[in-house]
């Protein structure tokens, strides 16, 4: 990896509907900045069937906007290639060309995988973690003990048409029977790859090493078998790296090769590495987002939780613990358009309506949600519809986060040694590592969060859905630039982190929320906050309140925060914290509505309470809250 000075870089993310291009430039005195963006429809389907057409269109927009911005007609990013089609010009020579071009892709449904294991919540889970971490959508986890009968497993494997399969199972040296049996089921199902019938389905075997010969004997004739180190060599160890790397290699070699135009795009993505112009592999979009999150967590030594809520799916990423353990989950059917109806089905109507500060006819709401599903590109023009969509978003985020917490756990099946002081603690192997109290930064991304008409609404949605505890910074990805920066971090982490901090993240502010049970009329937080404008906010805030204090972008407020009796702000029960609270485009939110449990009233007091909080947060215009 090198950090050579690259003055002009183009990064694209080829999404399933839109190809988004950004220009990153080194500007003297400022460092790396994202300067221009362009987009065009993705072109992987008929009639064009060539992803590079969309890339050229998006880059052409960048080129035109760059010429306008710098009033320089000589700026050129594209040239006419040998067969008369436009290509990206690398390396740069003055105004002509760019120093590097990198790309991510989720077009054509992204990377779709099936994983197998022996014990569902041990090797099955490790395999799922490896696949998700590599940016895949996991279509199913088939395990020896998953309660389905063998013939049902065969039918399931046959009906799924994944891009590849990851097989895990067994610790090294352990029994081989179960993992070989699983291979036999896979062999009997004779699964076919999703794209193209001309190649064999790639299967990565990352299970018990001792079973390798038997696995080869069972599968090698039918599929493209790739052997890899065991992802669970012992019960106490998870070794996901080699399997993830193999998934990425295969994604490039097999899946991308089948997608229309990708063989060309793979030749285009180039940049200087170790002094030589080299090909930079295209990354699956979620893998790139994970990459930038890990980079940021490590560089800033913080714990990060990120969410990307799209039309069809919601991805949650987290980096927790001192070892910076990265986890990613995809809630494949929680989204704000294609899958909006599934949010209603999963969350149930009462849970959505509890966030709505007015009465609404249930049947109208159900039909509105279904109409959004069948016409996914429409936007809420009426304020009431915006409030309803944001209520649905809170539930989609909440459910996706529950799934994430259940998945981001310490290894199951490990034997734990405990001393006498731990004997009464309830921690077991397999507990979640997501700790909202130690979380430093919560990042939101995706249309409903990034494009909310008021950033205050983004803050409200993040707080209501994730219920941050103690003191937490809140941010939003301005234009969904994280994928671009994630792949850029592969060749130039400096450029990636600089742009992330300056242009990608919009800091919204901080949230202060004491945790614990308290009587409804008791003081939950005594706050003395010295605000940047010189004023001092001082209040004993009772349970069930919200406050929004002004503290702008780049500013900090000195705060003395004393939690109410029996409550915790991160330093222990009843312990006062003296901290600097970072501001943002929204400010500092003090939230004494309670955590563990957080309960919304179900009686007549709910609507007035919601209105009060929304008014305090300036979430919506006054007239809808009066």
């Amino acid at each position, binding site marked *: 990896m090198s950090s050579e000075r690259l003055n002009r870089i183009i990064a694209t993310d080829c999404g399933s509907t839109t190809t988004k291009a950004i220009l990153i430039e080194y500007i003297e005195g400022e460092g790396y900045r994202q300067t221009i963006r362009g987009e065009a429809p993705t072109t992987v389907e008929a009639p064009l069937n060539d992803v590079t057409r969309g890339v050229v269109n998006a880059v052409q927009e960048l080129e035109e906007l760059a010429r306008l911005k710098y009033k320089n007609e000589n700026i050129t990013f594209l040239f006419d290639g040998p067969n008369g089609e436009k290509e990206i010009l690398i390396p740069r020579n003055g105004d002509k060309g760019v120093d590097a071009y990198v790309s991510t892709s989720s077009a*054509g449904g992204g990377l779709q995988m099936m994983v197998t294991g022996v014990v569902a919540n041990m090797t099955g889970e490790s395999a799922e973690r490896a696949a998700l971490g590599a940016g895949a959508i996991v279509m199913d986890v088939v395990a020896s003990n998953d309660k389905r009968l063998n*013939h049902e497993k065969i039918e399931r494997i046959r009906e799924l048409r994944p891009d590849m399969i990851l097989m895990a199972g067994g610790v090294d040296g352990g029994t081989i029977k179960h993992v070989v049996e699983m291979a*036999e089921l896979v062999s*009997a199902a004779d699964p076919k790859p999703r794209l193209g019938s001309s190649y064999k389905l790639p299967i990565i075997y990352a299970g018990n090493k001792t079973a390798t010969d*038997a696995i080869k004997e069972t599968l090698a004739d039918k599929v493209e078998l790739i052997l890899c180190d065991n992802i669970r060599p012992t019960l106490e160890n998870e070794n996901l790296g080699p399997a993830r790397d193999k998934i990425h290699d295969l994604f490039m070699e097999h899946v991308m090769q089948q997608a229309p135009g990708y063989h060309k795009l793979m030749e285009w993505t180039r940049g200087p590495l170790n002094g030589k112009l080299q090909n930079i592999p295209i990354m699956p979009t979620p893998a790139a987002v994970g990459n930038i999150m890990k980079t940021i967590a490590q560089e800033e030594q913080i714990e990060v939780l990120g969410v990307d809520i799209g039309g069809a799916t919601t991805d949650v990423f987290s980096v927790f613990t001192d070892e910076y353990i990265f986890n990613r989950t995809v809630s494949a059917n929680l989204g704000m358009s*294609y899958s909006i*109806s599934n949010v209603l089905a999963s969350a149930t109507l009462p849970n959505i309506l509890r966030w709505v500060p007015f009465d609404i006819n249930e049947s109208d709401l159900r039909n509105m949600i279904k109409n959004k599903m069948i*016409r996914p590109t*429409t936007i809420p023009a009426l304020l009431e*519809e915006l409030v309803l969509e944001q209520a649905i978003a809170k539930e989609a985020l909440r459910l996706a986060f529950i799934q994430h917490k259940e998945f981001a756990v310490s290894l199951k099946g490990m034997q734990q040694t405990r001393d006498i002081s731990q004997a009464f603690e309830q921690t077991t192997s397999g507990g979640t590592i997501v700790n909202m109290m130690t979380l430093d930064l919560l990042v939101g991304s995706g249309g409903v969060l990034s494009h909310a008409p008021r950033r205050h609404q983004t803050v409200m949605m993040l707080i209501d859905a994730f219920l941050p505890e103690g003191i937490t910074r809140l941010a939003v990805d301005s234009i969904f630039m994280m994928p671009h920066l994630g792949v850029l971090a592969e060749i130039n982490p400096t450029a990636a982190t600089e742009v992330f901090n300056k242009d990608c993240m919009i800091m919204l502010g901080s949230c202060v929320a004491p945790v614990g049970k308290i009587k409804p009329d008791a003081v939950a937080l005594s706050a003395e906050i010295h605000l940047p404008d010189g004023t001092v906010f001082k209040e004993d805030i009772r349970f069930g309140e919200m406050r929004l204090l002004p503290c702008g972008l780049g500013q900090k407020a000195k705060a003395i925060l004393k939690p109410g009796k029996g409550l915790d702000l991160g330093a222990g029960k009843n312990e006062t914290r003296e901290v600097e609270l970072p501001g943002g485009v929204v400010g500092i939110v003090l939230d004494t509505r309670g955590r563990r449990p957080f309960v919304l009233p179900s009686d007549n007091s709910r609507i007035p309470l919601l209105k009060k909080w929304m008014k305090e947060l300036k979430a919506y215009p006054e007239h809808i809250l009066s």
Partner: protein
Amino acid sequence: MAQAYSPGLSVTDSIVLRKQRILPLKGTVLVKKGDKVKAEDLVAETHLPGNVLPMNLANKLGVSANLVMEYLKVKPGQILKKGDILAENNGFFGTGLFKTKIVSPIDGEVESISHHTGQILLREPRIPVQIKAFIDGVVVDVIPEEGVVIENKSAYIQGIFGISGEVTGELKILVKDGNEELTDTMIDASCKGKCIVGGSMVSLKAIKKAIEVGVNGIICGGIDDQDIKALLGYDIGVAITGHEHLGVSILITEGFGKIKMADKTFALLKRFEGKKTSMHGKTQIRAGVIRPEVIIPIEFKEEELIAQEAEMPTLEPGTIIRIIRQPNFGEIGTVTRLPEELHTVESETKVRILEAQLENGKKLILPRANVEVIET
């Protein structure tokens, strides 16, 4: 700037239609290029591999996996009848007494036998899959071993949402205009085998009646979400439909709720009343959009079958649009102006807008994302 409006649904009295009819696996094509086919005709067929039944012989025989081979009476690839002996041990102390016989529970063949796990896999006979033409037309292309392309000239309506698969039937209009609801009292035995047309809404009672009398298809403006849930027994979470087996196929032209069927759509259906119609409810909104369709074949000469290149409809002053979100959901208007600058709508969202005049003369400002072009 990416396209900021929905391309809209086709409603046309004459279109050259191409339909690919492809097998899920390679098989045999039963027609040849130039053949005239009817919707009901078979055009291709294949056999899916039969289901696999695994059995652990080692466990059943009470021996370790590596010894299973010694007791086998069959070999991989062997054709089996139900009751055939798969394996047999030597009985009590090898005396031949109290032998354990493992017999095949199915007709089929031996797929494989493993000495690692002692497992035998039996495969049931292959399952035939047949593809019909679905529309009356001419076979214009044969994709060897895969299927055919059929062309015809049709009146054609794309729906917004539907349920259940392909059906054919004579078109029968049951309402006086696109505003009238389709009720159970309008449906009687004369609707059997037909594709019936309602106006703004079809009720649950009407759908049940239609199933009862044997209606093949229902075409209507709107439907209530709760009625679909009651009908299917579950809530549709993601818009991927067409696999349901309701006993009737349903196609919705406008959306959920009570919404008047667009005049143009209703008039077109009325014009072709009594004609043979092919329709399906298959809907997929995610990548690779599939919309439900009503196809009414019309007379044509083969030289007329020149399919036009699909074009993206343009949004310009004079374009007829349908409003696809509240307020004014379902209304039809004409674009009068397309201002370049962003506009703040009631929800405070800044969007690209258009100005339009409704059929009743009312003038409106609308987000471009909330209209679709009515293709003509």
